C-alpha cells in the first residue's frame, strides 16, 4: 500500500505541474489538431491545379479543345494565356510555373493533314513526384480532347497511332531522381531545426540560470545582446552547410549548376532568419522547455508546408499562404534553383526578399519583446 501512496504522490505532483504549465498543455492539444489539419487537408500527393503557361502562336479549334481538356482534368491551371518563350522559361526557372505547353505554329494544319504534329510539354521536374501525375495524364487528355474533332476524313487518325506526338521534357532533373530534390531540401530542413533551436534557448537559459538580471544590470543594449548571441551560430550554420553540400556532391551526386554567390547570399539570409526566429522564441518563452516546444511547433509546418516533403503548388491556397510565411519555403526554391536550375543572383531575388522581410519582422518583434527591465 505504501508503494501505491508514493506513486500517487508523484502522480498528483505531475498533474499540478502540468496544469500550471499552460504552454505544454496547449502543445499537447495543439499538435494533434495541427497534424490532423495539415495531413488531412493541406497535403496532397496527387497535386492538382499546377500553374501552367501555354505558348500557342496560332490558336484554333484543336488547341482550344486540348486546353479545355487540360483545364477539365484539374491538373493544370493556366497562369497566362499567351506568353513568349522567354517569359515561360523564366517562370520555370523561378519556380512560378510547373509546366509550359508549346503548340507549334503549324499545329492545326499538320493535324488536319495527319502529319502527327509535335506537342511539347516542359515540366519542372526538380520535384519528380509533383510533375509525374500531370505528365502521365497529359497523353490521355490530348487523345480524349481530339477524339470528337477527328471525324470524317480524319477519322482514320483515331485508329492506330495517336494523332499528336506528345514530347515530354523533364527539365532540371531529366531522370526524375528523387534525391536531387530531397538532398538540397534537407539542407534547409536541417538548418531550420538546428539554428532555431540554438537561439531559442539562449535567453531562457540566462533567465533560468539567474544570469539575466546581471546582464540587464550592465550597460548592454538589446540589439547588442541579439547580435552577439546570433553571430556565432552563423559560423556554425556554415559548418553544417559545408558538410551537407560536400555530401550532396560527392555522395549523392547532386548537380551544382548555379551561382555559388547566389547560394551563399541565400544561405546567409536564411540562417540569420532562423536564428532571429529562435531568438524571438526565447524572448517569449519562460523556460528552456517552452522554447524547445515552440521550436518544435514551428518545425512541423515548416517540413510539411514548405514543399520539402510534399509539392507546394499542389496544396490548397490557404496552405500555400501559410507556407509563404515560412522562410524554408523560399529557401527551398533558392537552393533547388541554384543547384539544379543554374539560377543566379537575379533569379533568386523573388525568393530572397521574402526571407529578408521575415528576418526584419522577426527581429523587430524580438527587440520589442526583449525586456530591458525585470517588470
Amino acid at each position: 500500500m505504501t508503494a501505491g501512496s508514493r506513486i500517487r504522490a508523484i502522480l498528483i505532483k505531475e498533474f499540478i505541474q502540468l496544469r500550471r504549465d499552460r504552454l505544454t498543455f496547449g502543445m499537447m492539444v495543439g499538435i494533434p489538431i495541427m497534424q490532423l489539419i495539415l495531413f488531412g487537408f493541406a497535403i496532397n500527393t496527387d497535386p492538382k491545379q499546377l500553374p501552367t503557361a501555354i505558348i500557342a502562336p496560332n490558336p484554333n479549334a484543336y488547341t482550344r479543345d486540348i486546353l479545355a481538356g487540360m483545364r477539365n482534368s484539374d491538373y493544370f491551371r493556366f497562369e497566362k494565356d499567351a506568353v513568349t518563350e522567354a517569359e515561360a522559361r523564366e517562370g520555370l526557372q523561378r519556380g512560378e510555373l510547373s509546366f509550359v505547353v508549346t503548340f507549334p505554329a503549324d499545329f492545326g494544319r499538320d493535324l488536319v493533314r495527319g502529319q502527327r504534329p509535335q506537342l511539347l510539354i516542359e515540366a519542372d521536374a526538380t520535384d519528380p513526384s509533383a510533375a509525374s501525375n500531370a505528365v502521365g495524364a497529359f497523353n490521355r487528355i490530348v487523345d480524349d480532347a481530339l477524339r470528337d474533332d477527328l471525324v470524317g476524313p480524319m477519322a482514320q487518325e483515331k485508329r492506330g497511332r495517336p494523332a499528336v506526338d506528345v514530347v515530354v521534357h523533364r527539365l532540371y532533373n531529366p531522370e526524375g531522381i528523387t534525391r536531387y530534390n530531397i538532398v538540397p531540401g534537407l539542407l534547409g530542413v536541417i538548418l531550420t531545426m538546428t539554428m532555431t533551436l540554438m537561439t531559442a534557448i539562449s535567453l531562457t537559459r540566462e533567465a533560468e540560470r539567474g544570469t539575466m538580471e546581471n546582464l540587464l544590470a550592465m550597460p548592454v543594449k538589446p540589439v547588442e545582446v541579439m547580435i552577439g548571441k546570433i553571430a556565432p551560430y552563423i559560423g556554425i550554420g556554415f559548418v553544417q552547410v559545408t558538410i551537407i553540400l560536400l555530401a550532396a556532391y560527392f555522395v549523392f551526386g547532386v548537380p551544382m549548376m548555379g551561382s555559388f554567390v547566389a547560394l551563399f547570399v541565400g544561405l546567409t539570409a536564411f540562417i540569420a532568419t532562423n536564428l532571429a526566429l529562435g531568438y524571438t522564441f526565447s524572448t517569449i518563452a519562460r523556460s528552456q522547455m517552452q522554447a524547445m516546444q515552440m521550436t518544435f511547433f514551428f518545425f512541423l509546418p515548416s517540413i510539411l508546408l514548405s514543399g520539402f516533403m510534399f509539392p507546394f503548388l499542389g496544396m490548397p491556397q490557404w496552405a500555400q499562404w501559410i507556407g509563404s510565411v515560412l522562410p524554408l519555403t523560399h529557401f527551398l526554391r533558392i537552393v533547388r534553383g541554384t543547384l539544379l536550375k543554374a539560377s543566379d543572383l537575379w533569379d533568386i531575388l523573388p525568393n530572397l526578399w521574402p526571407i529578408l522581410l521575415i528576418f526584419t519582422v522577426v527581429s523587430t518583434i524580438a527587440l520589442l519583446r526583449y525586456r530591458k527591465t525585470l517588470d
Partner: protein
Amino acid sequence: MNGEVNAIEAVDLTKRFGEKTVVDHVSLEVKQGEIVGFLGPNGSGKTTTIRMLTGLLTPDSGTGSCLGFDIVREADQIKRNIGYMTQRFSFYEDLSIRENLEFVARLYSLTPMKDYVDRTLERLGLVSRQKQLAGQLSGGWKQRLALAACIMHEPRLLMLDEPTAGVDPQARREFWDQIHQLADEGLTVLVSTHYMDEAERCHRIVYISYGKVVARGTVEEVIADSGLTTWVIRGVANGALAEELRRQPGVEQVAQFGTTLHVVGSDAVALRATVDRYAGRPGLEIAPGETSLEDVFIRLMSQHGEARQ
C-alpha cells in the same frame, strides 16, 4: 559631480505586483561615502527597492535618482556608473573567474581590458584561482567573484543585495573588511542583509517591513528610539522559566541564549517590577542588559504585521 548631492535619493517609491503592494512609499537618502544597511525580513521589499534604484524595475509611483541620474529616464547611465551585486549568483558557471571578469570588462568597454582584470583579480585575491570555473567555487569565493565583477569598472556607488547569504563567518568578515576599504576610498554602499552583526558594521541602517520604512538612523539611534529595556537573567534559566516569564506583565520578548535569558519590554517600570519578583529566586542572577539590534527588529517585525509568510 557636486560633492553635496546624495548618492541615492528616493522619494515615495512604490511598486505593486498585481494586488500586492511590495514597496510602499519608501524614501531613502544615502550620502556619498556612506555604508547604509538595508534591513528587513524576507519578502519585505528590499530586493524590489534595490532593483528600482538600479533601473531594473520601473516604480509605479515616486521618484528617485542615483548619482544624480533619474532612475527611470537615465537607467542607462546608472547601469554604467554603479555596481550591482545580485542576490542570486548571476555569473556564468561554465566560465572561469578570469573569463567572467573579461566578459564584464568588455561589456563596460574597459581598456586595456587585461590591466583591469589583472588589477581586480589581485585586489580580491583571486589570482591563484583565476582559471577555475565559477560553478566549482564555494559560496565565499563565488561572492568574491561577484564583488570583483561589480567593482572592476570603478563605480562610485555599490548596491549589494544580501551579498553574504550562505557564506561562512570568516568569508563574511573578509567581505566586510573589503566593503569598509572600498568605502574609505570614497565608494558609497547600500547593502541589504538580515544579519544583525552586519547591520552593526554599517554607518546607518534603514529597516523596512512589509514595504514600509519603519526605522532608520545609526544603530544606537534605532535602539534608543525603540524605547526598549533589557534585563539579563543568568543561572538555572531554562525553557520553562522563559515560558513563565513571557506571560508576566511588561515582558514582550524572552530570548534564550544557553543558560541566559534576555527579557525585553517597552514599559520599563512594569518590566522592572516583574524582574524584581524573580530576583529573590535561588540560583538566579539578574542584571540590567543592553538592548540589541536584534531585539529591536524582532519587536518591529511583530509590530508591523503578525502574519509573516
